[in-house]
């Protein structure tokens, strides 16, 4: 595959005109997914959806194609939180059609049966394909990177080879020992929280009507205790969110559609129920002060739950806040449907209200927490507002600095150089990367080869920008350096057809 010289393109266009453009046809896509790249160890990984492979892109322009074989598709990437490990969920197919003799390709089989596996893509060296059941869709890495747990996300893809799928289990992969196990924990297990600090020793699994405490220190994980969330067989109780107290002795669990907060004692298994103002939108643990902050989308209150006596203290807000951000010494609460941004001093609980001019569709706090950026699109017009979060002689500048954009803001990233933080901004339909420095408000832009979709940090001061070009296009930006773009990787394997897996021991 090579780029076409400009002169040849012109000659070819003439020939094509003589030959005639034959029309159009539908082509099933996408070829790749620009909205959701994965960053691992300074490289960008994107799935080549049609080819079933993965492209690894590097800032120096290198493109490397990772494939699991002609008969296997890589359908999903799962990175570890620290960005050092990358897992791939793969799918291979066999044909159960009784008239399937001699078939080679999946699209020739009337009844293909999918088999899923998990493989380690990075670091390289482990080629083992570990079986994964059809119902698992959401993955969680333990903080130490040792355990990977898959829970069911409701989209059951078939029932597997034996015609039965266990809907009450979780899948556990111990990367250190290479052991995979399925553990029954309850129907509709959908959320996992690891316990144990620096070295993971256990996990809480939230499923419908119960919470399971699992011991991960044994060779095979075992359920150490089960906390029923209701004794009424007719009651539907679905846990929504879970946080752990800083000492790891209690878990706080909110429930969908309920103002009850379940406090689970993990040392002496027991349940205490605390009544809240409503169903909380966000729960964030304030570890420095050993308490939990809760906000509500439809109630103008911030509740603070102490971890010693489980008592609640209310902080009044002007309007509901569905989002909560915790910084060093203060918290921010806002709602995507509202215009108020509340700054709450975590020591004094004093509330300072910032009033945005437009309801934000995105809200980002700078890494040094000196300012925040709100993106909005009133009537389709792009707007950006900057909130100054600094203290000026004991006072706050609560009026936001508003800016008009050429198009609705898509995404932002931050980079810091000397005393200034730069906001890198993408605008819809604009072929440029815009930079706005804080606090000087100096502006500049870098031309992009195509309209962008997303921006993110690769490592250090290197950023990636993805573009929606169907054949693949990613740009790498480093302040002070020339923009470098990598494209064409979406065409890899465009013409390939996925083969069927052939079992040596049984006929297809």
């Amino acid at each position, binding site marked *: 595959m090579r780029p076409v010289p400009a002169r040849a393109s012109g000659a070819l266009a003439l020939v094509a005109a003589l030959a005639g453009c*034959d029309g159009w046809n539908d*082509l099933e896509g996408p070829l790749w997914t620009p909205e959701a790249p994965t960053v691992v160890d300074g490289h960008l990984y994107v799935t080549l959806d049609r080819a079933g492979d993965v492209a690894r892109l590097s800032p120096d322009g290198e493109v490397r194609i990772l494939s699991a074989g002609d008969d296997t598709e890589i359908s999903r990437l799962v990175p570890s939180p620290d960005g050092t490990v990358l897992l791939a969920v793969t799918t291979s197919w066999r044909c159960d059609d009784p008239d399937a003799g001699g078939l080679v390709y999946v699209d020739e089989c009337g009844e293909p049966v999918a088999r899923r596996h998990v493989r380690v893509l990075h670091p390289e060296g482990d080629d083992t394909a570990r079986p994964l059941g059809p119902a698992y869709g959401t993955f969680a890495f333990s903080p130490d990177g040792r355990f990977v747990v898959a829970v069911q996300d409701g989209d059951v893809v078939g029932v597997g080879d034996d015609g039965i799928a266990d809907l009450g289990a979780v899948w556990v992969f111990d990367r250190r020992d290479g052991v995979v196990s399925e553990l029954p924990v309850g129907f509709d297990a959908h959320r996992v929280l690891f316990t144990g600090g620096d070295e993971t020793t256990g996990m809480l699994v939230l499923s419908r009507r119960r919470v399971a405490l699992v011991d991960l220190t044994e060779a095979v994980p075992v359920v150490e205790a089960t906390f029923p969330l209701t004794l009424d067989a007719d009651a539907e109780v679905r846990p929504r969110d879970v946080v752990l107290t800083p000492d790891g002795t209690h878990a706080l669990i909110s429930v969908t559609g309920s103002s009850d907060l379940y406090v689970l004692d993990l040392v002496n298994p027991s349940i205490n129920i605390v009544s809240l103002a409503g169903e909380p939108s966000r729960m964030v643990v304030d570890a420095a002060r050993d308490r939990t902050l809760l906000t509500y989308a439809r109630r103008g209150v911030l509740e603070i739950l102490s971890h010693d006596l489980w008592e609640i203290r209310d902080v009044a807000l002007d309007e509901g806040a569905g989002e909560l951000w915790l910084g060093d010494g203060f918290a921010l609460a806002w709602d995507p449907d509202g215009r108020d941004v509340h700054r709450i001093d975590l020591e004094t609980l004093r509330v300072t209200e910032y009033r945005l001019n437009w309801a934000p569709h995105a809200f980002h706090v700078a890494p040094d927490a000196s300012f925040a950026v709100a993106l909005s699109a009133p009537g389709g017009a792009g707007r950006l507002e900057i909130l100054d979060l600094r203290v000026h002689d004991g006072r706050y500048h609560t009026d936001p600095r508003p800016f008009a954009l050429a198009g609705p803001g898509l995404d932002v990233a931050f980079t810091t150089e000397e005393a200034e933080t730069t906001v890198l901004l993408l605008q819809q339909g604009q072929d440029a990367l815009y930079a706005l420095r804080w606090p000087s408000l100096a502006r500049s832009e870098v031309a992009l080869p195509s309209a962008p979709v997303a921006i993110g940090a690769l490592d250090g001061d290197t950023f990636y920008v993805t573009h929606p070009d169907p054949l693949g296009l990613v740009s790498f930006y480093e302040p002070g350096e020339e923009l470098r773009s990598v494209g064409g990787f979406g065409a890899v394997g465009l013409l390939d057809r996925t083969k069927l897996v052939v079992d040596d021991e049984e006929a297809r």
Partner: protein
Amino acid sequence: MIALLLALSAPAVAARHELSFEYAATLHGDEVTGDVGGFWAHDGFGLRGGYAVLRDRQRMGLVITGAWSHASRVRDGELFDPAATTYDGTYLGSLEQRWRFDTFALGAKADLDLGNVFYPYVHVQAALIASGLRLDDDPERPGNPNELAARALAPAGVFTVGFELMLPDRKLGWPVTAAFFFDAGYQVAGPLTYGDFGGKVDLSGAVVRTGVGLRM
């Protein structure tokens, strides 16, 4: 009956040198071109030449042939997402495809002179198919970074049966005459793999050709 006997008994000049302009169609039914390019057949034009090695007073003639044919397809593939839940979410962009097939063939044609007008024949060829595929996801912007190209080569064999209708040069006393031909048969081809684009395009299938030309 008498006319046929007279025709068969007349001195025959079966094989002639030839130069023809040809239209050819291949009905291959390939799944890759069908899925990606939306076409299962292609047609085009070319040239065919022949050097007679058996001629003069032979009812059966043998011509060594050489031919080139060119076919192309320019398609605008509209990418859609089958998993999209909204109408606006289905369209993902378009992908211009320019497919090119050039067939270079060497063969032998054996014909039978029937009355200096009708010449049935069989034609066998060994061929080389040179193909190219160019992709562009932004054809409105020449020089964009996603103008891509790949090539492929594959051998092929072609067997056809057909006939020629010729203006009777002997009766008319012409050194050069005109002819029309039509033949049909089958092509067996090896797989075409387009570099990083991958694929195994199989152009085996029915072949139909027709054309006009000069006979000498």
